[in-house]
């Protein structure tokens, strides 16, 4: 069934179709609609779940963690300051191998208070052990939420489904809502044999000394690497049922491209448009949309970037003193590579990234052999 939905509601429908059992969340702009709609769904009886209106994001995730330890399918949603408040618990969830799914809407971080789009909130959680999937449309949000539960439950690693504040969260697009039957076939009820059971004397999260801790982390690390493969399988299975899939990375016009721009989230749209415009002018441009950022799909990226002579990265985030986080990760991945990488930082705190601005990045790279500096701020008053 097709409906015109804002990104946040697309997420709620994904959660409903996934039959989440325990939902615990706290309001924060621009995520709030996700859980408002979920409460309405629970109230209407469209979703048979416990919805717990906790007193903070910190408690929201603590609550999901314990519910997941007890074997329930758990969901939360947050953004920016809420996500940062969860930081300690993010480690608990991933270290505990709990298949929790979270929606994280990319929003800037204070000071000053800023509700607009920026990716620094989720990217600064990159070492917590959560899988991160970035979405570029409302349809992709709905589909990714459903895929995320399947992925989380098959590799026992929590998954963050991420999309841009307002550009997607509050923007209406036509979205195809799959039938419950189709989703049920794809995502059976949760069955976690490691969940604690009443009557059994087992413990979650006991004190571990140096003689055990490292093996736990190694296992997480190894499984994390396998999550990439697993996601591709799940994505293919989803395509069979719905006709839609997204890929770990999505190359556009890359096969003969001399300049390729890498970016994530809704920037996939305008960058694609700019590539079309440049191609019309005879410039061989391409772009790669990064869907999966954790684990970082090094091989898939290398493959997509093969034809490029020059690589550009568009980051809507900043690690102060280092630069854009995607650029930083890509440079490490391509360390043996001699090709220059232009690291552009733009659109912080929700500043517009116009097609003209993106085009000027391509022209910067066209007009020079190497970048003028590691990090180039665009669309900023100096």
């Amino acid at each position, binding site marked *: 069934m097709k409906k015109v939905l804002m990104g946040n509601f697309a997420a709620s429908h994904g959660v409903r179709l996934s039959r989440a*059992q*325990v939902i*615990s969340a706290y309001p924060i702009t621009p995520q709030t609609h996700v859980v408002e709609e979920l409460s309405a769904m629970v109230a209407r009886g469209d979703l*048979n*779940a*416990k919805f*717990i*209106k*906790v*007193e*903070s994001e*910190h*408690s*929201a995730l*603590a*609550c*999901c*963690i*314990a*519910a*997941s*330890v*007890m*074997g*329930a399918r*758990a969901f939360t949603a947050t953004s920016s300051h809420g996500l940062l408040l969860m930081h*300690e*618990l993010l480690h*608990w969830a991933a270290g505990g191998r709990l298949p929790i799914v979270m929606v994280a809407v990319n929003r800037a971080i204070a000071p000053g208070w800023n509700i607009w789009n920026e990716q620094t909130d989720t990217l600064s959680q990159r070492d917590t052990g959560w899988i991160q999937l970035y979405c570029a449309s409302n349809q992709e949000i709905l589909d990714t939420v459903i895929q995320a539960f399947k992925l989380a439950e098959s590799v026992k690693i929590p998954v963050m489904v991420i999309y841009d504040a307002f550009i997607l969260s509050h923007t209406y697009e036509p979205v195809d809502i799959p039938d419950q039957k189709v989703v049920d076939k794809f995502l059976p009820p949760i069955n976690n044999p490691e969940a*604690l*059971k*009443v*009557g*059994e*004397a*087992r*413990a*979650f*999260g*006991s*004190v*571990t*000394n140096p003689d*055990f801790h490292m093996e736990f982390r190694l296992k997480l690390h190894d499984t994390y690497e396998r999550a990439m493969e697993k996601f591709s399988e799940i994505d293919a299975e989803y395509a069979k049922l719905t006709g839609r899939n997204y890929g770990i990375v999505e190359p556009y016009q890359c096969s003969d491209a001399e300049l390729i721009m890498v970016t994530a989230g809704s920037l996939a749209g305008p960058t694609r448009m700019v590539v079309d415009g440049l191609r019309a002018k005879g410039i061989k441009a391409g772009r790669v949309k990064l869907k999966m950022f954790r684990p970082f799909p090094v091989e898939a990226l290398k493959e997509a970037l093969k034809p490029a002579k020059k690589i550009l990265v568009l980051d809507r985030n900043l690690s102060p003193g280092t630069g854009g986080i995607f650029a930083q990760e890509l440079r490490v991945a391509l360390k043996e590579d001699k090709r220059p990488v232009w690291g552009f930082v733009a659109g912080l705190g929700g500043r517009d990234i116009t097609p003209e601005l993106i085009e000027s990045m391509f022209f910067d790279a066209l007009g020079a052999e190497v970048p003028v500096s590691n990090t180039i701020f665009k669309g900023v008053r100096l």
Partner: protein
Amino acid sequence: MIEPTYTIEESEELVHPGHLACQGCGATIAMRYVLKALGKKTVVVIPACCWSIIVGLFPSSCLDVPLIHTAFETAAAAATGARAALDVQGQEDVNVLAWAGDGGTFDIGFQALSGAAERNENIIYCCYDNEAYMNTGIQRSSATPVGAWTTTTPQGGLEDRPKKDIVRIMAAHNVPYTATANVAFPDDLYQKIKKAASYKGMKFIHILSPCPTGWRIPSSESIEVARLATLSNVFPLYEVINGSKWRVTYIPQKKVPVEKYLEAQARFRLMGEEEKKRIQKNVDEYWKELLKRAKR
């Protein structure tokens, strides 16, 4: 009225030998009684505290029930999550026991606790109070009494602040059941836990649990000192139903001076005579007020 007797019927032991507690640890005795009262259909949630160690290192546990370790400040929120999972699985008859220290309850976990109480979550929250951060080596918490030495109050607690009245605060959330208890009064403790389990909604039990290491007492005197706390009215035993009906569950037959309680513990050694008198006065006033509240 219940005398400090032990008549708990022989039931299954759910706290097994091999735990890692210090000798004379009140918190360990408290858990033993509480689980005897709750039985095997219980899930325990423990935040960072001495009990995260006492229970045993991976892969062992001295508890014969499922146990969720959780972050320091999250006992009540995690218990909420465990409750929700059990409920959606149709296991409404299982007890969820949050088991936290005074630091995890009065201080860092207070926000989550207040939230769970306000939502009237169907859990039993026990705070075993050893009156300091003991796991990390005896630092002051807001449950540390005036005048007590800790490693962060080396002058014996210069701060002239009364101990946070946690039970009154919890009762003010109008939850079905709040109570104090003391490991030196096992029957009273046991019956309060049984009673707590019979209510649906939030139950909060504040259990005085001596820590010989932190209180600077011989481990063999742990129970004796805890008993003095109640006999001197420093730690009265009472319960509050629905936040309004107060009932004192033990009235000491012969009042023991507060001094006797204080002098039994080296942590109060730095305390002056004036201070002791002031504490006696505060204790008397509090007791009077408590009896008044109980009469209403």
